[in-house]
């Protein structure tokens, strides 16, 4: 009896406190919603425009279409040389290869830098970090000549093979930092149990590096999916075009751009990135937090 009264009393007080704070909280939320909306506006505008007939996209700048044109999606899907799923498949092949390649190769390289001692380790580490600072424009022509001599232009190899050779210094650095934070005692006890380097890497380091691996996977996915320039340069055959290349085919800076279908396909192209990010977001945050502090 007394306890129920007490509980009720507490509940009432809480409500009163909440009521007193209500205007403040309402204001706060209204502010946040407004801010969120203004950040989201470009995305919403793209979504809205994907349902507008092309000629209305710029004539009616508001969000709600006065005329619905869901046929943009059908038209966009079929307007180019191939149906759009061909480009999605091409992008998927490249992204999948890049993710697998980066995970394996970068973690191996990172293990070496973090755990092994070898001659010139510091120098190599510095050189590796130095490659981050090279802009793509510096390396693209030598790369092109190299791949052209290998007869790899117009194949996926220039976009895939380097990933298996640990060329993404950023991810190596990320994982080196992470592995350095793992206690060496784990390695030592594994060595006493008879493990060699490869087994320590595979059984001890890899499972413990999950947050760093997830970060690598997510960033590789997003960057490769959105990469335009190297795909533009190495893939000229329309059969091999990827999603970013396909999207650019709708654009004509001097004449008519098919804005409706372009936005429709852009919405679709956002899907995988959005999904992958949502699925891996938890690990991403953990990965950044744990590698950043140390």
């Amino acid at each position, binding site marked *: 009896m007394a306890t129920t009264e007490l509980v009720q009393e507490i509940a009432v007080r809480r409500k009163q406190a909440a009521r007193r704070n209500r205007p403040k909280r309402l204001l706060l939320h209204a502010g946040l919603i407004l801010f969120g909306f203004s950040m989201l506006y470009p995305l919403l505008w793209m979504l809205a425009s994907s349902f507008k007939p092309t000629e209305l996209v710029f*004539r009616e700048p508001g969000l709600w279409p006065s005329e619905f044109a869901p046929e943009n999606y059908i038209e966009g899907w079929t307007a180019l*040389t191939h149906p759009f799923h061909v480009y999605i498949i091409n992008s998927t092949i490249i992204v999948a290869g890049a993710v697998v390649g980066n995970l394996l190769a970068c973690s191996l390289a990172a293990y070496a830098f973090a755990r092994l001692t070898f001659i010139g380790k510091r120098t190599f580490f510095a050189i590796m970090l130095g490659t981050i600072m090279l802009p793509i424009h510096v390396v693209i022509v030598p790369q092109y000549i190299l791949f052209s001599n290998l007869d790899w232009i117009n194949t996926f190899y220039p976009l895939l093979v380097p990933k298996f050779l640990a060329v993404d210094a950023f991810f190596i650095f990320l994982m080196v930092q992470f592995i350095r934070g793992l206690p060496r005692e784990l390695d030592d006890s594994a060595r006493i149990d008879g493990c060699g380097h490869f087994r320590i890497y595979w059984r001890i380091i890899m499972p413990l590096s999950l947050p760093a691996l997830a970060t690598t996977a997510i960033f590789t996915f997003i960057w490769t999916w959105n990469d335009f320039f190297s795909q533009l340069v190495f893939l000229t055959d329309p059969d091999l075009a990827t999603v970013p290349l396909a999207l650019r085919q709708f654009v004509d800076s*001097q004449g008519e751009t098919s804005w409706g279908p372009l936005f429709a396909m852009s919405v679709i192209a956002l899907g995988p990135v959005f999904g992958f990010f949502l699925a891996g977001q938890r690990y991403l945050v953990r990965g950044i937090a744990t590698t950043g502090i140390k």
Partner: protein
Amino acid sequence: MSARTRARPLRWKALTAGLSASVLLLAACGGDDEDPPADAGDDPADEDADEGDGDSGDDGVTIRFSWWGSDSRHEQTQEIIAAFEEANPGITVEPDFTDWGSYWDRLATATAGSDAPDVMTQEERYMTDYALRGQLLDLNELDVDLSNIDPLALGGGQIDGAQYAVATGVNAFTPVVDPQAFEDAGVDMPDDTAWTWDDVIALCDEIASNSDYNGIQVDGSNEAGFKIFARQRGQELYNPDGSLGFDAQTLADFWQIQLDLVNADCTPAASELQEIEGPDTSLVATNQAAMTTAYWTNQLGALSGTAGRTLELLRYPGEGEQTGMYLKPAMFYSISSQTEHPEAAAAFVDFLLNDPAAAEIMLTDRGLPANLEIREHILPMLPEDQTQVADFMAEIGPDLADPPPPPPNGAGEIPDIMTRLWEEVIFEQMTPIEAAEQFITEAEAATSG
């Protein structure tokens, strides 16, 4: 014990996964020649794609053709390629296309990597650069029939007597106006054979005060408009030797007129004007203004399509006798000096220029055809807005001046310089004459290299 026995298979598995993936990939593609992994698998006979043996005779050769544009042009061009391959068995044409902005990045990289497309589309501001670096072949020395090409358009591709490029078609730069807006404002359309810039300012003012429309969309940043203005005074943007052919006062006067229009309150504010980009967002396309200073004639379709109205082309306003208007080659076809199959490339360019079948698919997509016979041939097949362009070009034909010489090396930088200084003028950070003098300094530096 058990741990040790499990160790070997695991190590092997990991090794296979980790290292061999890359090694295998390397090995797998080292031996094979051209076949891409995800090929749709449609061309069975391209065995000697890269092993070309010089002669384009009986056995098959493959050439690459690059162009820029949007999806409709890509589709049309691939139809044209199919028609060419049917008429020329033994030659396969690989398409290589992207949009305008990325086109030059890709072309520059491929050219630097000694893998330029055999036949490429060029544009006047870049053509000189490629030609002077020895990347283009002289078409006169190849088997390309140029006899029917409009002589007014042919000169644009000549440098020092060599025909490095041939015009695909021609456009003119000219005011586009909305007759509906004139009617709504109760203002009569001007007589464009005699109108001056004073008339334009008066019309602009009249329309803006009689209706909700803006009078005119001004643009002082496009060098093509200034080119006409300078030619009306007997000057040129560039002399044949590549130097600048005008004085600062001419450019200052040109900018002053545009500035007067903005200050007469019959245009949107300067900041709004600078937001306009491309025909889709132009004020006549969005039904917000009665006139524009100028667009290219091949943009009429895009403008009137977005406007949902019939728009009209007028002559460029002027002061003197000479109208100064000229035909600009819309694009060029060029053949790379890196090609291993010049004969096949020449046959393809010849087909693009002279074959009615190609023209019937292309119509005016690459400008009004430069081949006069072909132009006659396709006239009846054109959609309404393009008939309008063709009629307009025929009407102004007798008044057209000689084509300006090809722009010098470095001309690709001029639009940026002009846009930047025009912004200084329109936002009144510099007087027109100050900006014009700086333009001359910067443009000379850009084109002297």
